[in-house]
């Protein structure tokens, strides 16, 4: 199998697989391996009314919500640890009722992606019994009428084998999953370095899979140690080579978080006007990820480049600028 017909420019991949009202899942976790280049492109193409599925997500989710691309979000967590105690645009959108949301736990979201990947209707779990995650439903009745949305958030029933209480969590089957990884082989084999989070389950649950990557590697190189690979190429619909495609989030083995950029974003995005300025300057005001990176500047990219063998930048100054 050749990669040729799947290897697309970023704008073409987004144009081909995203559409108004699509149900999408984003890979990565809070400030790590968010598919940021793809997120910026979705915003530039003004795709609207997205239904978003994430577990613990940060920068990508916040940008999409802030830019008005998201109608509903099902999530476990919207923050970036020390870099954003709560994602600022997610927070505003929820407080103002500008999006619909449904809260789950991380474990629950991952089981839902796994159910989608296995093509079973639901997965059972014990986590969350006795909580408001079980007691309170977030989506409106109208949202539940969307045939792609589960008829209810979850169900509690008696386990037929032991008689104990168990929660059933509905499968997620997104139209598109977008995941940023380190390597794709020349025949499409995907290799994630470091933590996989729930990217593999998410990728297999989706009808279409867009992979953005740091490098295209010779296929035979990846096949020398197949146990390190994450996904076979035939599951992938589009491959886009985008170096620094997760910036300003981290990509293990390639670059660390751009702490300065994340602090700047948080401060700007905490007001409507500031966020508008950020969006104009860093997303809408540039035509491509290459142009965005030129704006970030070589000096900054060098500053965050991972220290060989560590996977992150040793000694990176991560203090909040005064």
């Amino acid at each position, binding site marked *: 199998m050749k990669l040729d017909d799947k290897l697309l420019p970023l704008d073409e991949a987004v144009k081909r697989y995203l559409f108004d009202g699509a149900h999408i899942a984003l890979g990565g976790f809070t*400030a790590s391996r968010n598919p940021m280049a793809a997120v910026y492109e979705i915003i530039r193409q003004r795709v609207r009314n997205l239904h978003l599925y994430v577990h613990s997500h940060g920068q990508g989710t916040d940008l999409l919500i802030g830019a008005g691309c998201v109608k509903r979000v099902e999530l476990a967590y919207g923050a970036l640890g020390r870099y954003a105690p709560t994602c600022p645009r997610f927070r505003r959108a929820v407080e103002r009722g500008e999006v619909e949301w449904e809260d789950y736990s991380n474990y629950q979201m991952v089981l839902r992606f796994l159910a989608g990947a296995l093509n079973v209707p639901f997965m059972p779990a014990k986590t969350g019994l006795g909580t408001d995650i079980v007691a309170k439903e977030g989506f409106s009745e109208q949202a539940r009428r969307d045939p792609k949305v589960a008829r209810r958030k979850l169900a509690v029933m008696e386990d037929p084998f032991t008689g104990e209480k168990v929660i059933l969590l509905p499968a997620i089957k997104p139209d598109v999953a977008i995941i940023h990884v380190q390597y794709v082989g020349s025949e499409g084999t995907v290799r994630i370095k470091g933590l996989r989070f729930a990217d593999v389950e998410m990728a297999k649950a989706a009808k279409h899979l867009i992979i953005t990557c740091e490098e295209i590697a010779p296929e035979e190189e990846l096949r020398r140690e197949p146990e390190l690979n994450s996904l076979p190429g035939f599951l992938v619909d589009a491959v886009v080579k985008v170096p620094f495609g997760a910036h300003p989030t981290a990509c293990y083995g390639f670059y660390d978080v751009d702490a300065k950029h994340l602090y700047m974003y948080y401060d700007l995005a905490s007001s409507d006007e500031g966020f508008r300025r950020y969006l104009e300057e860093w997303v809408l005001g540039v035509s491509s990820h290459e142009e965005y990176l030129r704006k970030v500047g070589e000096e900054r990219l060098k500053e965050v480049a991972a220290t060989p063998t560590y996977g992150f930048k040793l000694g990176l100054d991560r203090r909040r600028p005064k």
Partner: protein
Amino acid sequence: MNYTRREMMAIAAGRLIRDGDVVFAGTGLPLLAATVAKKVHAPRCVIFFETGAIDSPLPELPLYVADSRVMYGASVNAGLLEAFSILSNPKVRSIALLGAAQVDRYGNLNSTCVGDYHRPRVRFPGSGGACDGASLAWGFIVFVPHERRRFVEKLDYLTSPGWLSGGDSRRRAGLPRGGPIAVVTDLGVLRFDEQTKEMYLAEYYPGVKLEEVQANTGFELDVSRAVEAEPPSSEELRVLREEVDPQRLILGG
């Protein structure tokens, strides 16, 4: 010896970790507590993260649980499913260290919102793995600043299950193991009565007055069992300041 209450909080919480515990750590103060414990009195404790990094040596302090710093040198780098299978494994004494915006007298936690769930006044990040740690771990320890608005009679949203409504209500809800062990604040350490599962003050830090604790708690608190906590040792402080958080990323100024 001079120390801040935040430093005392990290050290007091670290003392609750036993050698050999398998610690499910959130970033921030929980991670400081776990790392101090590992370097001072519990060298065989294992730190792992919900993101799937198991037994990370942490040459630098991570600032979020997906930080590349948790991946370096780990025994296994996997994913969330693997992390939750360790958290809930019955042969593992897993201890979850969790923060929260609000806590009630039974150690139930809110990290979702203040106000009505559908029209919140303030929205927080949500559960993340907190509900999972609280539901499934062998036990969990809570970190929260001691403020009246955080120690509330009734949570605005119950994100993570503690002792629910006390007594054996947790077990009856379908959670056969686990539950909160302690709540560590900047004033002291609170524990739970064995029968009623209600919170009581177990320790207060040197210099803290009992009235100060009650005044900052939004419900009636039993302080009759409280004793003064041991101040930090010079070794605990040295490790915390020089080895764990030399940039004072979490400890602050």
